[in-house]
């Protein structure tokens, strides 16, 4: 799959932003006044910034409001609703904390649930795709949720939780990669089923593509550049995303180390998200002979 920068930025930043909103919603940290204001500004910049970035890859962003209409069937539509509801509820809860010095706990818990719900709907957009065997697993939701919770804990300064959740997210990531590497082969979809021509043990080989040039399908679904660096990038993603932040958290606390841990985590998650798309094999590539079948 083509790793569109707008979608990588969106899932990375919004995941972190909604993760932070979750921790703020359950009053960890139990901030009020100006320090609450600072936390909420960071959370909203990340969450809303990510959402705005996601509209950049639309062909017609001016019609984006129509996307709220199909929540009964479409995970993308549900994501839109969940995000707006989470932001509205957490906005009210945050306004109480910042301006009235009031903690409406129930509202906070609802907002926290909606924030995690938003991350879940995002994960299901990918997790539902039968055409991309690497994504079609409940582990994809586990991946998105564990990243969001761990990153949110890190950003919320919940050091003891972060020290548990960061390694946990790393384990989910490794499991997701391990399953993903054999997902296409074990999906049962290959050039034989795609063409129906592998009858009586015949071998099928793509002989000629439909056109000599490239096309939308090849650009969007048959992204292969950079695969050879995948293993190195995985190590970088694990190192920056989880190992370095954990080491920095274990050192005596300074704000510099805290900030470094966040920046390192963000870079690691971005690398992981790039791989999430760049390594994903869409089955349409089979028709073009671009997948080992």
């Amino acid at each position, binding site marked *: 799959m083509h790793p569109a920068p707008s979608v990588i930025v969106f899932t990375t930043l919004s995941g972190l932003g909604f993760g932070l909103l979750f921790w703020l919603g359950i009053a960890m940290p139990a901030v009020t006044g100006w320090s609450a204001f600072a936390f909420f500004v960071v959370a909203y910049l990340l969450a809303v910034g990510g959402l705005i970035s996601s509209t950049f890859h639309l062909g017609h962003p001016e019609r984006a409001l*129509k*996307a709220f209409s199909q929540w009964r069937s479409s995970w993308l539509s549900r994501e839109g609703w969940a995000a707006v509801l989470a932001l509205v509820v957490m906005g009210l809860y945050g306004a109480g904390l910042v301006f009235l010095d009031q903690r409406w706990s129930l509202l906070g818990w609802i907002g926290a649930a909606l924030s995690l719900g938003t991350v879940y709907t995002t994960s299901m957009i990918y997790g539902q795709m*039968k055409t991309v065997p690497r994504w079609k697993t409940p582990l994809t939701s586990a991946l998105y949720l564990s990243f969001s919770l761990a990153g949110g804990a890190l950003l919320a300064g919940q050091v003891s939780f972060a020290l548990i959740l960061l390694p946990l997210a790393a384990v989910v990531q490794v499991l997701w990669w391990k399953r993903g590497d054999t997902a296409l082969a074990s999906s049962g979809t290959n050039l034989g089923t*795609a063409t129906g021509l592998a009858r009586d043990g015949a071998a099928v*080989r793509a002989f000629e593509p*439909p056109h000599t040039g490239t096309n939308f399908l090849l650009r969007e679904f048959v992204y292969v550049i950079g695969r050879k660096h995948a293993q190195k990038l995985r190590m970088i993603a694990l190192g920056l995303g989880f190992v370095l932040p954990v080491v920095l958290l274990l050192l005596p606390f300074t704000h510099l180390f805290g900030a470094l841990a966040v920046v390192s985590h963000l870079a690691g998650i971005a690398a992981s998200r790039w791989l999430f798309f760049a390594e994903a094999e869409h089955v*349409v590539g089979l028709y073009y002979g671009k997948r080992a079948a």
Partner: protein
Amino acid sequence: MTSLPASTKKKLGLVIDLDTCVGCHACVISCKGWNTENYGAPLSDQDPYGGNPSGTFLNRVHSYEVQPLATSTMPHPAAQLIHFPKSCLHCEDAPCVTVCPTGASYKRVEDGIVLVNESDCIGCGLCAWACPYGAREMDAEEGVMKKCTLCVDRIYNENLPEVDREPACVRTCPAGARHFGDFADPDSNVSRLTAERGGMDLMPEQGTKPVNQYLPPRPKDALDQIDVLAPFLEPVVQEPSGFLGWLDRTLEKI
């Protein structure tokens, strides 16, 4: 609504005969022509006469080499070249429809055609992701999703002579490899062809229940001896003679 209809009155679709298709790409051209000039946004090209041409097509013809398995009766079977036209299969359980966030994608209750309402399409591309067949292409000029309409603006068009009221690809195919009809009717041309020739689903394991059916290539004839007179002819040269004969014998001795 992007929910799928529980059932459709008709199931309009295509039968594509892989045994007959000669790979001329006439269906590709007629499709592009009709659908550029008629319903919806035109199918644009980018850099069409330059070094890196690319464009939107609703129908593309792949070619595959099929090497049959060697058997005791046929130890060296010849490879076959199969031309493979591919367009939207108008699936009964179309995954492209349910992922659409705006309701722009829908499957018609009356005839089962899967269409895009282009004025509602936000160009998010998710439907193209959900299609295992690569039947949907985002138009780079218009920013909306394009797909086969089964020439919905031809098949019901009373301004056209009756003979032309079928999809452009079917109308133009010089080999008669494409057939259009209603799969819900067991006596239709397409239903009978599918039954007689063992029509198949593409990627059945994806669970999309495609309406379009592909007819597999028939086994090729295996003739033992074409020329009946050949066995009666004497070979022209049995043993090399002269200088070549001497060379042959000398080299044998070494």
